[in-house]
């Protein structure tokens, strides 16, 4: 436990002024062979997640989990009512059927929606690894603009092609307005 703070390089971050510049730069970065990249923007930009290499089933996992939550909620809702009304607490009302399923539809529907909604939100947060108070990108001073009007592209150090000087030069060649080193505290 040394009191001295050591830091290592997390990556290099380029700043862009418009979403179009960022999108073009991201595409070029992928073409140049960098795979561990991430873009940060103040609002969602069409095509950007595909451009950083986030596509296919993985990118729609939230939808799949939501489906599971919805089906689970619906089965729970109907199962609960069937078990209560027909098995554990049967009440004979004029000889009417105990499994009066049409009367169970509203609650089944509500629990389907509830299950799906909760699974959608929780899976979105969990897959995004939120809550996560600390992340190396926050060490870049200018990054606070990422939630206002600036667009950032970060090439991460774990990429096999990463080299601090070369990668920084590369980002400059893509017309990034600022290029910063991203430090990570160990």
């Amino acid at each position, binding site marked *: 436990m040394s009191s001295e703070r050591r830091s290592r390089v997390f990556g290099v971050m380029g700043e862009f002024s418009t*979403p179009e510049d960022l999108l073009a730069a991201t595409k070029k970065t992928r073409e140049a062979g960098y795979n561990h990249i*991430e*873009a*940060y*923007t*103040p*609002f*969602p*930009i069409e095509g*950007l*997640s595909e*451009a*950083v290499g*986030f596509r296919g089933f993985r*990118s*729609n*996992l*939230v*939808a799949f989990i*939501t489906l599971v939550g919805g089906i689970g909620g619906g089965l729970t809702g109907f199962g*609960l*009512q069937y078990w*209560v*009304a027909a098995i*554990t*607490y049967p*009440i004979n009302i004029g000889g009417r059927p105990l499994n*009066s399923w049409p*009367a*169970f539809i*509203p*609650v089944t*529907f*509500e*629990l389907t*929606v*509830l299950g*799906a*909604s*909760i699974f*959608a*939100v929780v*899976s*979105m*947060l969990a*897959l*995004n690894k*939120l*809550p*996560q*108070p*600390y*992340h190396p*990108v926050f060490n870049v001073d200018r990054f*606070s*603009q*990422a*939630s*206002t*009007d600036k667009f950032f592209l970060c090439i991460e150090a774990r990429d096999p092609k990463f080299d601090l000087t070369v990668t920084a030069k590369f980002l400059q060649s893509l017309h990034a307005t600022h290029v910063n080193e991203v430090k990570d505290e160990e």
Partner: protein
Amino acid sequence: MSVTQENLRVGHEPEPWLAPGHTYASVTDKIASAVLTRPLGIGWLAGFGLCFSIVMVLNLAVGWLFIKGVGIWGINIPVGWGFAIVNFVWWIGIGHAGTLISAILFLLNQQWRTSINRFAEAMTLFAVACAGLFPLIHTGRPWMAYYMFPYPSTMGIWPQFRSPLIWDVFAVSTYGTVSLIFWFVGLLPDLATLRDRAKNKWQQVIFGMLSMGWRGSARHWKRYQVAYLLLAGLATPLVLSVHTVVSFDFAVGIVPGWHTTIFPPYFVAGAIYSGFAMVLTLAIPMRAAYGMQDFITRRHLEQMAKVMLATGLIVAYGYFIEFFMAFYSGNKFDLFMTWQRLHGPYAPFYYALILCNILTPQLLWIKKVRQNIAALFVISLVINSGMWLERFVIVVISLTRDFMPSAWGRYSATVWDYATFVGTLGLFTMLMFLFVRGLPAIAISEMRELVHQESHGSEGHQ
């Protein structure tokens, strides 16, 4: 099509949804500054103070109720429901506009929802909170309210799932929960914006915790958009189901005037109608007080007026069908109940309802009225009152005039009924006051998207 032709005739483009000249930074500054830097004005303090004292009236009314029981209200046999249910249905209906704006208009890709969805959703939450209070305190023993949920009790009893009142418990609690998480998901990127722009340690810590470390990465946004779209898709049938289930509370019963199949659609339309009226009631003062005229333009107000007109006509159709079916069926109880609406002791309420809900909104056919902000404000208040009268007429006239004359009665509310109702109005308004200063009242990240879209050709959307 007609819009295009009209524009061609007049020879100008429709007003944009956002005043020209705004950038990503300017919309962010403007909306965030209302939370972060704007000092507490005398207007806000006075308004908040007034509402806070009304909430104290609510506390008093509910406290006295807990001591004495529901006998302090005007309810009796046959009118066991009274104000509590009237207010419950009124409040829950108001909530519906928020979900309609945030979910249904989102699915329909209506850009004008962007600047009003956040505070309409907040309005939904607060309205649902006020609504939920009424059945709770109406149970007489609110500390036993958990009996309504299915849980393995030592008494071995379970709720009756064939009852619309139990459906209501599930519908309203699901609606409250889904509205809350939908609202929070929408807030997440904006909370991150506030964290990054925080002016002091407190703001930084609070918004830092609430924003959960959101950093707007492309992968975050992708999952966020999937989740948001799905939530919108889920909230759409949900909002339609909630007032449907509320209408089942009435329609499943055999009381004259309640037992009709028109109830679910006409309740849903009425809910949206009153909800949009409430959105206008809130939006008009708010945009003036916080200088949000660039974001909530006259065109937004006009659009909401059109939705009110359309849903108001559906409601009028519902009234007409109720009337028609009573005569067409020839059922003597329905006929008598209709006659009582027109000539009975509560007839003034019925005529006031027709005036507020059917006649007044016809003014909205006139473009000059739709563009007159003061007129819209007044009309929105009239419609809010009209929708409250509608629920009063439905509950009270039917219950006081059912099958046997020996079961007839009268109903009048006591001062505690009024204190509770006015108290929830205070609670609702107080929460809105807190909301506009504590959280961004307009979705900032969506406004930035709107800036992006407006700057890249606005082909095809009207």
